């Protein structure tokens, strides 16, 4: 009888350990997902801010129709993007259009002194920062999750339940996604 009890005891302990690992993997995977959605939230926030900014600038920048139109077009393209690759490409265009717009703003001191424009300016640059920080947090979480999946002993549980490693959100060219760095 005794060996049977020992075997049952060992099995129970193994089951508890496996359940614990499985649960921690699931919660980590959810954290990765949550970190990814944070990036999305901030990108949407930027889309919401752009019309306000353009609306404020319109009154001052009568001769810059083209620049403003570029920003609006890039934004609507980014909003309509289907998959992630398309979206990343479209967001790049938004960045480019925005940095051109910010360069032009330099020529309009009245606009730069506008209180409403200044507060939108702060919102926009903060949103750019938030996108960068959300990406940073996502990569942190993804690395932690991937480590768990690849390292012993949790890799056994991960293999059993088919956990897949998360992709990192790396930028092909770091400078391209840099926030428009213009002195105000």
């Amino acid at each position, binding site marked *: 009888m005794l060996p049977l009890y020992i075997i049952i005891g060992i099995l129970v302990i193994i089951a508890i350990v496996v359940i614990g690992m499985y649960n921690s993997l699931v919660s980590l995977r959810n954290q990765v997902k949550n*970190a990814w959605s*944070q990036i999305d939230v901030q990108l949407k926030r930027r889309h919401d801010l752009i019309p306000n900014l353009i609306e404020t600038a319109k009154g001052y920048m009568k001769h810059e129709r083209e620049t403003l139109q570029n920003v609006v077009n890039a934004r609507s393209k980014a909003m309509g993007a289907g998959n992630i690759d398309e979206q990343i490409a479209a967001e790049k265009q938004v960045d480019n259009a925005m940095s051109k717009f910010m360069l032009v703003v330099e020529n309009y001191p009245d606009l730069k002194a506008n*209180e*409403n424009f200044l*507060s939108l300016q702060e919102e926009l640059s*903060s949103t750019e920062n*938030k996108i960068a*920080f959300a990406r940073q947090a996502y990569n*942190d*979480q993804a690395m932690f999750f991937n480590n768990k999946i690849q390292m012993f002993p949790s890799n056994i549980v991960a293999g059993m339940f088919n956990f897949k490693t998360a992709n990192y959100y790396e930028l092909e060219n770091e400078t391209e996604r840099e926030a428009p760095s213009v002195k105000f």
Partner: protein
Amino acid sequence: MWELIRANKRKSMMLMAIMAALLIALGYAVGYAYAGSIGGFIGLIIAFGIWVVQSLVAYFAGTKILLATSHARLIEKEAHPQLYNIVEEMKIAANLPHMPKIYIIPEQAPNAFASGTTPKNYAIAVTAGLLGKLNRDELQGVIAHEMSHILNRDVLFMTYAATMLGTIVLISDIYVRTFFYAGASSRRRYSKSSGSNVYSILIPLVLAIISPIIAQILYFAISRKREYLADACAVRLTRYPAGLASALEKISRGARSGADLDNNKIVRPLYISDPKQTGSALSSLGSTHPPIQNRIAILQRLSGSVGFSSYQRAYSKVNSTKCNFIPASALKEKEFKVRQASAESEKPLDSKTQTRQIGDMILAANSFAFIQCQCGMKLKLPPNYNKPQVQCPRCKTVHSVPVAEMSAMLAGLNAAKGKGNPSQTAATQKKYTYKRRSSGSWESFKCKCGNLIQLSPAFKGNHISCNSCGIRIDIKS
């Protein structure tokens, strides 16, 4: 990050255990001095009981008490959008589930602290002086430092350590006082009951005098390690060590010239830099924070890349001792590139404008309303100002007061109900549009959700979203 927290916990637990042993020994010895060995156990239980009660109070009400004693005021995003944005940026970088509450302390001396024991009541408080003196990158560094305290569970741990120190100080204080004031007659009585042993008087007395000192040294030692670790985590979050370095420099300069924050030994470690730092080398054991020059020097060495291992290298170079508070698992992590400075330019303000800005911030925190007159005068109205109009004292222009005007309009609205007066109900009854009466002056109206929206004369947009319910409201002029 979690590895770091766990390793942190283990080390802190050891120091806590030493402090607990000290507390138990003190409780036993003091009890023994009063009533023999039974008294020893009673003393032990009482000492532990005091600590438990204090910890519970600190856990459930500590944040409130701390914020109340520093006169901190809770602010919303509108009061200081930049501060709010920076806190949110750091919240995202740290991947915290909840947004911490933000408080402004009406003080000129630049400083900041983090507080809160559970994720729901995390709070970050900054002084008005800090907001006035730092630029965006520097402020971000400071907020990242405070966020790291929250992330590393420093606040929770320091609360427990602080209450333990408090209990030890309290017990020894009571004992030493009664010992010297009770006089010779009562001392004779104690010694009779405890077997007339000279040690039964001497040991408790020595313990009572020494243990608060040891406990304080331990407490401060824990605090100092955590400051370095919070710095290391902060630059890992911001990827911009220069910001925190120059912020610390400004804080240390401001602390020397500015007024001291009113606080005691126990809350000092909670601030980003010690409010009562004297700067002498002798005080290093009794200081809650590492020397600020060393912290700055370490940060300045991190120029190429940031990460825990480069911070450790810089630490050993500056302090010429081995750095032992970063766990091995965190050191394996790869290094990150330092980012560029943010686009905001440095605006060198003269001290007069700075002082005025800080004063305005304090008033705004006290929910004063501001009206900018066209003559350049800024009218500052107290929250209990309830007349619909105000006259500029310089140019005699009459301004309408947005908030008071609103309440007057609401009163009119209530009176008009039933009569169906369309002109008065237009602002609130029409669902998503608001018609401007005139552009070029302040206007205010209430959203459906009851949130008051103010339009500045400079507002040129065609829609606005409510800060409280997020609904989109079209603005027509």
